[in-house]
C-alpha cells in the first residue's frame, strides 16, 4: 500500500472516529507540479489528500492559526522531520499542546515520500536525533561559505543587493511557524525600531532582526525562502544562525517539547573569545 493510500485511509479513520476534527495535508495545486495545503474535515474528503515528493511545505504553520486548537480537539497534520521539530518548538514555547497534534510523519527520499512511524511529537524523538546527528545541510553550508570567503565589504554589497529587492510583503514571516506573534516587532511604531518602509535600510533592518529572532528556532524548512516573491536567499542567513547556535552552544532547534530557548538560557562557560 502506497503512503498516499495509507495516509488517506488513516486520516479517514481518525476523522470518522472523531479522534481528530481536521486533517491538514497536501492536495493538488493549480498546476501538475504544484501541491497546496488542504483542510479535510470528513472521511470522504480524504480523497483530496495527496502525498508525494512534491509535498515540501511545512504545514505546522497552520496549527498556530488563531483559535484552531483552543477547543481542545485534536488536529492531524502531515509533517516532515522539519515540521516535527517545529511542533517541538511551538510546544516548548507554549504555542500549542502537542497532545492535540496527531502527526502523519513522512520524509522525502530520492523524490519519494516514505512514512515515518509515530503519531505524537514524542514518538519522533529518534527521527529528530537522527536529523541532528546528520548535521546541518551541507549544501546550505557550501552556499553560505561562499559568502564567508569574500570580504566584508563584498558581503555587504551582496546582501544590500538582495535586501534591496525586498518589498516587505512579509511572506517569509507569514509562512513561518515560528512567527506566531500577533503583533510583529516590525509593526511596533512607538518607537519604530525597524523602518517599515521597504527601502534598503528598512529591509536590512527587517531581515536582520527576523533572522535574529529565528536564531535557535529555525528548522530550515525553507518556507521563507520558497515563499519570497523576490527570491532573497533567506535560507543562507537562517542557516548561518542555526550553525552559530550549534557551534557556540551545541543547540539544535526543536529537539524536544521542553527544550529551553537558546537565548533565554546560558552557561557560565559559554564562549566569549570576542569580548575584550
Amino acid at each position: 500500500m502506497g503512503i498516499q493510500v495509507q495516509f488517506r485511509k488513516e486520516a479517514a479513520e481518525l476523522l470518522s472516529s472523531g479522534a481528530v476534527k481536521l486533517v491538514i495535508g497536501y492536495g493538488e495545486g493549480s498546476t501538475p507540479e504544484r501541491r497546496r495545503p488542504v483542510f479535510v474535515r470528513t472521511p470522504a474528503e480524504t480523497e483530496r489528500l495527496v502525498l508525494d515528493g512534491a509535498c515540501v511545505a511545512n504545514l505546522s504553520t497552520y496549527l498556530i492559526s488563531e483559535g484552531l486548537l483552543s477547543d481542545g480537539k485534536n488536529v492531524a497534520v502531515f509533517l516532515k522531520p522539519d515540521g516535527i521539530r517545529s511542533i517541538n518548538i511551538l510546544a516548548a514555547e507554549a504555542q500549542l499542546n502537542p497532545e492535540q497534534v496527531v502527526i502523519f510523519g513522512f520524509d522525502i527520499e530520492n523524490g519519494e515520500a516514505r512514512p515515518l512511524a509515530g503519531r505524537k511529537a514524542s514518538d519522533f524523538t529518534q527521527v529528530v536525533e537522527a536529523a541532528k546527528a546528520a548535521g546541518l545541510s551541507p549544501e546550505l553550508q557550501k552556499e553560505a561559505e561562499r559568502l564567508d570567503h569574500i570580504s566584508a565589504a563584498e558581503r555587504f554589497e551582496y546582501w544590500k543587493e538582495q535586501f534591496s529587492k525586498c518589498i516587505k510583503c512579509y511572506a517569509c514571516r507569514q509562512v513561518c511557524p515560528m512567527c506566531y506573534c500577533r503583533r510583529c516587532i516590525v509593526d511596533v511604531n512607538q518607537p519604530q525600531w525597524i523602518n517599515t518602509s521597504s527601502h534598503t535600510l528598512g529591509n536590512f533592518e527587517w531581515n536582520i532582526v527576523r533572522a535574529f529572532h529565528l536564531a535557535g528556532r529555525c528548522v530550515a524548512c525553507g518556507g521563507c525562502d520558497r515563499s519570497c516573491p523576490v527570491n532573497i536567499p533567506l535560507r543562507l542567513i537562517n542557516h548561518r544562525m542555526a550553525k552559530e547556535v550549534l557551534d557556540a552552544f551545541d543547540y539544535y532547534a526543536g529537539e524536544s517539547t521542553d527544550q529551553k530557548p537558546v537565548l533565554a538560557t546560558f552557561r557560565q562557560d559559554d564562549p566569549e573569545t570576542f569580548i575584550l
Partner: protein
Amino acid sequence: MTRILLKNKLDECIAAWRSAGFSVLAPVKRNDLSRFEEVERSADMALDLQITERTIKDHFFPQTEPLLRYTIKKHDLDSQEMLPPDIRRVFFGVRPCDASGLAIDDPLFGWDYKDQYWFKRRDNAVIVTIACTTSDDFCMCTSVKLAPDSTKGSDVMLRPLQNGTGWQVEALSDRGTALLDSVSSILQESSETPAPPASVPVKFDVDKAMEWLADPANFESHFWKEISLRCIGCGSCTFLCPTCHCFDIQDEGDTYTGIRRKNWDSCSFTMFTMHTSGHNPRNTQSTRWRQRIMHKFNYYRGKFGVNSCSGCGRCTRQCPVDMGITETLQAISNLQG
C-alpha cells in the same frame, strides 16, 4: 504594408531614445529577480520572459516614496515637498496586462485631485507594449475581458513577427506617435505578418462572478472562510499586483529631521484595518481576502466602472500557498451556476 522594428535595430532605437533624453526601461533579470530596470542596450533585456516577476507599477507607485522632508525647529517645522523628478521614460517590452494595470489605476489617482506623484510619472512615460504570443498556466487576461494583445494603457503596441526577426509597430497615442517618429529612420516598412496572439483560455465567467459578489446575501457566505483557509496573510499578491494601490503614510526620522513617506500597504495584513483601540473590523483572513476580491470586482467597478484586475496571474503564480484570484473567481462563478 506596416512599419516594423527589427530586433537587430533595437540597440539603435534605444540609443536614439536615450540621446533624445529618455531613460529606457525594459525587463531585466538580475540578482535572481526579473523586473523593469533601466537598460542601455538590448542585450540587457530579458524580452523572452513570459512576464516579469515585478510589475511596472513599481515605477509609477514605488513601494516606498518620499513625499516631503521636514526639519524640526525650536518653535515650528519646515517642510519641503519631494516630488519626483521630470524624467522622460520609455518602458519597452511591457506586457499588455501590466500596461492595462496602469490604465486601471489612472482614475483612482485622479478622481478627486490629481496625485502628482503618479501623474508626473505617467505623463512622462511612454509605454511600449509587446503583445503576448505565448502564455503560461497562470495567465488570465481573457477571463477579465482583456486580451494578450490588448492595447489598454499602451502608447505603442509591438506585435512579434511570425518570422521572429522583430515586431510590427503601431502607435496608439500622441506620445506613442511621437516616440516612433523620433526613430522613424530606424523603423522599416514591411509586409511581414505578425504572429497570432497567444490563445489564453478563459478560466471563469467574470460576469457571473460579479453577479454573485454584488448580492449582499453572499457577503457573509461560508464560502469566504473555506476559500481562504490556507491564506497565510502575506502581501505578496497585492504587492505583485499591477493594480493594487493601497498605501500607508509613515514619518521616518530622528530628533532633528525626517521624511514623510508613502509606503505600499496591503489589505491582507492584520494591521491594515487595526484601530487604535485594538478593535479590528477585519479580524480574520477570510474577511481580508473577501475585501480584496470585493474591491477588485465590485467596489472598484462601482466607483470607476472597471474591474481592478488585468489578468496577469501573478497573484497565483507567486502565491506561497497556491491561492489566487483565478481559483476564487472560478469557484464563485461555479457557485453562481
